[in-house]
């Protein structure tokens, strides 16, 4: 069995790649493509009569495959199905880093899953609070309740919109400029930032439309998303490219952190870097930039 370290609530999650938990050939080494998180799917990708088989396969994958630094999140079946409780049990027993709650519409939904997770952690002797949660918002109600969902639990690390179902509810289809989900994305981002958790955009499903995919990723970055859900490994590289900081940003962040160390050691709270006024409020952003830069192979120092 492969021991996994305690999951980090706030880590780099630029790319979360979906994988059918029932396909042995896929899940055995999904991490080789270099995505930040893999999303093993027990929900839509698994046929109704194979839910049981997928759980056995998931359990042994979690226990025996070394996913290294790649985060392993499992998408469980909806709370309106007979499957989700057993899904939670297998995720906790197998040691998944996180659970993605499908079709989440309220803080109560989060609490319901959280309760089941707590029970499972007790049942399987897993450290309490280890298993993280994220919510997928797939309906107008989910979007309207985004803030209460985002702030429902200390286990919540992020929230994602699920475009397929949401667009159906809204009677729209994917638009080139993203106007179909502009408000929903914005509302979800506001809620996530207000609650202090991460926010992820939906999948782009037309693999032949590279141009459309790239436009959407650029918009995601511009809107302030932390990352994106993906359906194919070949989408990873571009997302990482777009989400990478510029060389200028990296140098600036490094300067800020170095100056902050020197100045705070000397008891100075506000100082200037390249003529710009800097205080403690700039530090988390600069640290985030350097962590991102390190993940992108652009930074090898030891400030973060």
């Amino acid at each position, binding site marked *: 069995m492969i021991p996994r370290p305690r999951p980090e609530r706030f880590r780099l999650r630029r790319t979360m790649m979906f994988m059918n938990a029932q396909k*042995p050939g896929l899940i055995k080494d999904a991490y080789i493509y270099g995505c930040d998180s893999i999303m093993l799917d027990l929900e839509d990708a698994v046929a109704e009569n194979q839910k049981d088989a997928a759980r056995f396969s998931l359990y042994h994958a979690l226990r025996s495959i070394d996913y290294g630094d790649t985060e392993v999140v499992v998408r469980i079946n909806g709370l309106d199905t007979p499957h989700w409780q057993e899904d939670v049990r297998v995720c906790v027993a197998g040691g998944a880093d996180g659970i993605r709650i499908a079709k989440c519409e309220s803080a109560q939904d989060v609490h319901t899953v959280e309760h089941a997770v707590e029970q499972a952690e007790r049942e399987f002797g897993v450290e309490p609070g280890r298993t993280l949660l994220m919510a997928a918002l797939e309906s107008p109600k989910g979007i309207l309740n985004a803030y209460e969902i985002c702030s429902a639990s200390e286990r919540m690390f992020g929230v994602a919109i699920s475009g397929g179902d949401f667009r159906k509810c809204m009677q729209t289809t994917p638009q080139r400029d993203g106007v179909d989900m502009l408000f929903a994305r914005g509302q979800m981002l506001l809620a996530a930032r207000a609650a202090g958790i991460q926010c992820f955009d939906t999948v782009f499903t037309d693999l032949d439309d590279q141009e459309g995919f790239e436009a959407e990723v650029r918009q995601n970055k511009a809107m302030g998303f932390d990352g994106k859900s993906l359906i194919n490994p070949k989408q990873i590289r571009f997302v990482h490219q777009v989400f990478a900081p510029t060389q200028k940003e990296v140098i600036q962040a490094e300067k800020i952190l170095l100056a902050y160390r020197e100045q705070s050691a000397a008891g100075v709270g506000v100082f200037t870097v390249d003529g710009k006024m800097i205080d403690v409020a700039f530090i988390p952003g600069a640290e985030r930039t350097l962590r991102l830069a390190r993940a992108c192979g652009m930074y090898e120092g030891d400030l973060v």
Partner: protein
Amino acid sequence: MEILKPAIAGTLESSDAQVTIEPGKAGIELTLTSSVMNQYGRQIRATILEALERLDVSNARVTVVDKGALDCTLKARVECAVFRSCGQSAANIPWGGVVR
């Protein structure tokens, strides 16, 4: 566990294995075919028999068609077939107990 009815789990896709289990009376009667028989046949058989033993299955006819599955997949397919044959595959699986 006692095998009550025939059950099947897994597919014939590459890297998977299809396990069929049926009630039997004469211990474990295993029929194994594998695309990697010469190099891994004995290890595959050991993995299957160990999984059955953990589940306390002592009488069954078991047919495994292996398409190059890793051990974790073999175990998953055997266990699923056994739980299905007992009608117990949907909930309250003893994760970390006899399933490990």
